[in-house]
């Protein structure tokens, strides 16, 4: 499994770039993770989403899908795509250091 240095810490990421150990994540890592996703700078609106993703994950064991985010995070689906154009749920999960949201089947 690939490891990488982020904010001077050795981090283990899976093949799709998600944290293997979400507890390794700190807020200091977010800016660098965001740049890797071509998001620079991280605004307050981004942070609203990232903090929400984190707390949902800690609460429920999986990050929310885009639709659930749009309904509960206070950021509409349209704005979510403006903030994270390449797919809000996945990209925000990578930046927030949580596993890939367990999608639906």
């Amino acid at each position, binding site marked *: 499994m690939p490891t990488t240095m982020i904010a001077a810490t050795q981090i283990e990421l899976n093949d799709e770039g998600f944290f293997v150990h979400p507890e390794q994540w700190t807020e200091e890592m977010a800016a660098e993770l965001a740049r890797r996703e071509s998001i620079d700078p991280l605004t307050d609106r981004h942070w609203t989403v990232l903090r929400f993703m984190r707390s949902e994950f800690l609460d429920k064991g999986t990050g929310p899908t*885009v*639709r659930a985010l749009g309904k509960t995070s206070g950021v509409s*689906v349209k704005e979510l*795509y403006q903030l994270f*154009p*390449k*797919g809000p749920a996945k990209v925000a999960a990578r930046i927030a250091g949580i596993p890939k949201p367990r*999608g*639906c*089947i």
Partner: protein
Amino acid sequence: MAKRVVILGGGTGGTLVANRLRRLFSGTDVELVVVDQNDRHVYQPGLLFVPFGLAHSEDIVRPRQRQLHDGIKFHESGIERVEIGANEVHLHDGSVLGYDVLVVATGASLILEETEGLAGPGWMDKVFTFYTPEGAGALEAALATFDGGRVVVNVVDMPIKCPVAPLEFCFLADWYFHERGIRDRVELTYVTPLDGAFTKPVASKQLGGMLADKNIELVTEFNTSEVDGAGGRLISYDQREVPFDLAVVIPLHGGASYVGRSIGLGDALNFVPTDEHTLQSKVADNVFVIGDAANVPASKAGSVTHFEGETLVENVRRHLAGEPLIDGFDGHANCFIETGFHKALLIDFNYDTEPLTGHYPGRVGLPLLKQSRLNHLGKLLFQSVYWHGLLPGRDIPGIGATMPSSGKIPVAATGATTTPKE
């Protein structure tokens, strides 16, 4: 004192649970009440065939009450809300039903309003869905007079009922236009939010290959933000566009709206948080959930609902008797996938095992993940099994609730892409 079990929804899950509970508690004083908003039970898998003139709306609808065994009360009314704390259901007709155990079986609903333009200009004229009897009927008329152009089939987002149905629609459309001799004048495109034809890797590869073979274009990772019926285009959140002359859209799904009105019952999409193995809700000990209404990570399919029935009914009995619940449900699903030209393929999977090649239910059986006439006959036969085996709550011979693995070829052995030798 008599115990009362109230079952919300008289569709696939509500009906089979009521009938199984009736048998289990025959001769005891458990009272069973089924609530539904209407008395029209639709055999939903049949909706796929209506647009192509292979089934008619009236043939796939039967009265709900007739599917319920004697001794089960049927109460026809919409549901206003559930009060979990008070163990009460409030109905649109003003009545209030108290319960000892509540079974939520109200399925999934289509939410058109959440997609801009979907229900706007062009709806039921150039933009259709086959997920309702009305939609499937209107689409039949539209297809009959369609003589060429761009047809797109679009899944707005997951989860949806029967996630293979939109693919089956594509395969049947290919066959249908061939039969009419105009296939070369029709461009068929499948537009999905997923990164492949299907959710599970082995099946996705197989189904993606079939789309290519049938000359059906595949557009992936398309998250529909708007359906512009007047302009004839789908628009995604990342500003991509797919033009169409006729669009077949599978709208967003959510749980029933009363779930949202019932404090503490549902999640953000109005599905009910449910333990994936016991089928007890996570919101109250005496609330159980079956079928599409549950937020478990299984397909929203009639076969899943059927396999859940056994565990759910046993756990309702245990709950009433004060015994510990069983972790009985393994996520077992199987579906026939109609592929056109009188063939179908079969997939079988559960929470832990993706659909594999091989045979079902054992080595001598129906071929898995492979087109065959036998599977097509299986699909046709399913309608009769549905009314006469599944709804009455009978165990269907040879088809157990837990997933069989004896006839299957593991991924490592197949290299994930090859089909098995006969």
